[in-house]
């Protein structure tokens, strides 16, 4: 039995403990420990990803953890095309944030320990093949993120941290009821086995019960994603979180929600139940896309704007899942991946605006392209990638999602076909708010509202972090089949 997947959990965990203990004079070394640990994790993740989908089955790990007369929980890890990609992205983004945050001076040992602890939780969510383990890991991500926001955040950090904690915790409790109901419905001979496979094989029951259980789980997931109208925790959390926190929050933590929908709702439930929920999924998805985009236009804070754009883009993921077609799922996963890379650039750029310029308020900025060329380049690049410029990774994802949406509209025929216009509208709005924001910050007359002598451009480590992600955005934009090959191994034959 292979231990590679356990290593992906164990290495960051050990790293977190070591960095946590490096207090006092050794705290400067913490970032090196964090860098080494995340680098090793990234290498293992990359190696695992490149093994190819046919080999993934060899990596399974399965041990009985708790077994009593009524229940059995397992320490079970499993990867397939979906989780391999998410796991790779987690290790990549944590590595990038560690590079990016090397200038953190306030208790760097705790900071890096929290980053590594978040990595453990996220890896656990994506690797778990048992509902008990899945739920534990789902909650494990919460506490370090809570401290990350409330120790290293902005002025309203306490309010945001508590709001984030309570919102997502309530949602996960609702999800827990759903998990109970699902696992116990699938129980065989009175023994409820929490492993994914056992539940998938044993799950049944009346259509009404299944529809209700789907609803509980779905609620838990869409709050995490977040989908309008349960999105209000996200802008607050993002605006107050430190840059590293925002990158991980938007880049990988939001994906936990959509991952959950695909992994649990789509994989386990019968297609008739899924079709009962299809309208809701598509409706909420489109609502989020358009509401998020409109909200972006109104923002004056760059970071808040990017936060709302996440709502809009995650709405796209839900729309793609709601299409309930293979191509829909495939591009939903691709969009999750693309959005992870792109928001990493966007949040790093916004974070730098706060650090290097001193403000993120759009009305105070202007004409910075000449003053800060490198920063301006990455900002433009990020915005372009996010609005779906062909040749970059965002375009491929949006193209595929619109295609999937078109496909189901065409099937319904008649007047429904005009609904594709809603998707188009959101893309137009996206282009609009990004270009407008760019115009106001980078071009035009140089601002006189801030002290231009104190601003400085991107430093070396930040440049490295930004360019690694940017290169990947171009690479996967030109050569998407690198990722889609892995995804189709999962999405093909799912429905």
């Amino acid at each position, binding site marked *: 039995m292979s231990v590679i997947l356990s290593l992906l959990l164990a290495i960051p965990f050990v790293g977190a403990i070591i960095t946590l203990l490096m207090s006092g004079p050794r705290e400067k070394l913490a970032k090196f420990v964090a860098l080494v640990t995340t680098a090793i994790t990234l290498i293992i993740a990359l190696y695992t990803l490149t093994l190819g989908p046919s080999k993934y089955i060899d990596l399974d790990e399965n041990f009985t953890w708790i*077994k009593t007369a009524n229940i059995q929980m397992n320490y079970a890890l499993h990867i397939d095309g979906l989780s391999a990609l998410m796991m790779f992205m987690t290790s990549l983004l944590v590595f990038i944030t560690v590079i990016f945050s090397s200038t953190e001076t306030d208790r760097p040992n705790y900071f890096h320990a929290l980053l590594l602890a978040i990595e453990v939780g996220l890896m656990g969510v994506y690797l778990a093949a048992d509902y008990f383990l899945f739920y534990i890991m789902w909650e494990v991500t919460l506490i370090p993120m809570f401290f990350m926001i409330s120790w290293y955040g902005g002025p309203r950090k*306490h309010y945001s941290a508590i709001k984030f904690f*309570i919102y997502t915790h309530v949602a996960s*409790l609702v999800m827990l009821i759903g998990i*109970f*109901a699902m696992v116990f419905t699938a129980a065989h001979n009175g023994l409820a086995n929490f492993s994914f496979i056992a539940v998938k094989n044993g799950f049944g029951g009346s259509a009404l019960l299944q529809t209700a259980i789907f609803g509980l789980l779905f609620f838990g997931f869409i709050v995490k994603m977040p989908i309008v109208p349960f999105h209000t925790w996200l802008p607050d959390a993002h605006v107050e979180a430190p840059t590293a926190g925002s990158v991980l929050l938007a880049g990988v933590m939001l994906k936990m929600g959509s991952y959950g929908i695909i992994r649990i709702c789509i994989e386990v439930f019968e297609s008739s139940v899924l079709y009962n929920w299809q309208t809701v999924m598509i409706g909420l998805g489109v609502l989020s896309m358009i509401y998020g985009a409109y909200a972006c236009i109104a923002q004056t804070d760059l970071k808040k704007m990017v936060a709302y754009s996440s709502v809009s883009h995650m709405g796209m993921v839900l729309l793609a899942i709601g299409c309930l077609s293979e191509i829909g799922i495939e591009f939903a996963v691709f969009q999750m991946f693309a959005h992870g890379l792109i928001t990493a650039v966007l949040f790093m750029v916004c974070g730098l605006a706060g650090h290097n310029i001193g403000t993120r308020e759009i009305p105070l900025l202007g004409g910075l392209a000449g003053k800060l060329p490198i920063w301006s380049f990455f900002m433009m690049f990020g915005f372009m990638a996010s609005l779906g410029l062909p040749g970059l990774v965002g375009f491929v994802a949006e193209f595929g999602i619109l295609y999937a949406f078109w496909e189901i509209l065409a099937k319904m025929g008649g007047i429904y076909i005009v609904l594709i216009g809603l998707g188009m509208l959101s893309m137009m709005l996206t282009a609009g708010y990004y270009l407008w924001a760019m115009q106001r910050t980078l071009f035009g007359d140089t601002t006189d509202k801030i002290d231009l002598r104190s601003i400085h451009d991107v430093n070396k480590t930040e440049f490295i972090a930004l360019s690694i992600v940017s290169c990947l955005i171009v690479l996967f934009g030109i050569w998407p089949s690198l990722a889609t090959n892995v995804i189709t191994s999962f999405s093909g034959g799912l429905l």
Partner: protein
Amino acid sequence: MKMIELAFLNDTFGTMLAIMPEIMLIIGALSIPGLFYFTKNKNMCATAALIAIILSGVFAGCVILDSTLSCTFMNIFKLDMFAAVMIFLFLIVAFLTVLASFASSELSNHVSEYYSLLLIATTGMLFVASANNLLVIFVGVECTSILSYALVALKKNDPRSSEAAVKYLIIGGISSGLVLYGISMLYGLTGSIDIAKIAHGLENMENLNAPFVIAVISLIAGYGFKISAVPFHMWAPDAYEGAATPVSMFLSTGSKKMGFVVLFKIFIVMFAVEQSVYAVEEMRYIFAFIATITMTIGNIVAILQKNIKRMLAYSSIAQAGYILIALAVMSEYAVTGGIFHMITHVFMKGGAFIVVGALIAAGIKENISDYKGLAKRAPIVAFAMLLFLFSLAGIPPLAGFASKFVLFSSAIVIDGVVRTQWMWLAIIAIINSAISLYYYAKVVKVMYIDSGECNEKIVIKKSHLVAILLCMVFVVAIGVYPEPIIKFCEGASGILFGKC
């Protein structure tokens, strides 16, 4: 369950084995005042108490490990798996209380009396756990209650302590009266005070009659006081606030569990097992209703508290509401969950009270706002408190999560099938868990995020530290690997449902 072969104990002690744990405690309780008279050493008394508790625990532990040892003494005391698990639980409570009392600054000079009272109060609980006769149960409960009035009043210089004791005494007296009335009604109906015989007698009862209803209501109300279920909870916050912290901990983790043991014995063994008994269904709805209001009111009022002991008291009330789910669902799995939650509650709530006591001993006041900047001043204690509070809120992978997991899931699955009958109760409980997170997280925020005016390190006494670490280890270990404990709980609830 038979893990090791201990049959020789049966040969040595005969049926006396059934009351050996109690005998050990009584010997300890009686010798402590003499010991103090001769040595005048406080720590000596505490050590003697610990030794008595450990000796008593050895006997209970033997029965847990080899359940074939279970035996009956004079048809009154039956030391079976359920009794042994509960006895062990009470002994852990007493052990932690003694450890927390070593360095407590709140106890007056009556040290030897204090330990003596504590051990006899524990003995009362042990009697309740192993008795199978309503009158003996009543005597055991009274033994514990009367001594706890004295324990609450022990902080003689503090008027709050005396006030709390008087309040507790009056309410406790009323509840005892109610219970006795209920027992007399049952005796009138069935002609027996033996639980098994009453169950048999009730089986033949044909329709609902007034004495039966009165008996059930007065038993629920009387023991509702003991477990501080809403609306019988008013005494708890005052008593916990007024008493010395180790005593608050003893009341919250120990004497409340005794109330549950009695309720399990009466309502599971006497009524639920014989499904034919009239009005069982109605009783379950009464318990479900009490559980709902208990957890909701406990949690909502806890949010408003500024004093940490009062907050913990209300959170205890809420936890009692969760455990009441077991009585509403009345399945074997639910009772397993109830017992499991009682066990984890001892470590997490006990741990939190020990932290409060240790900080009082170090000169920190009882208000939540006094804990500002605690993470810097006492990192280990603050971290322990964080674990206890998150465990109480049910955050994985801590013990509180594991036990809530079993308890709440038992409301959804009954006899291995998903039933919708009690699903609403699980949903209410889960919403309550979410509410509770708010006030627990507020304390964590005060400790970790707010900065206080004073940055001096706090020195914690060794005995407190040992007790805190002990609780911490159990909170984490049970959370990560709960299987053995669940096995014992299953064994215990199996006994209640008449399996061997």
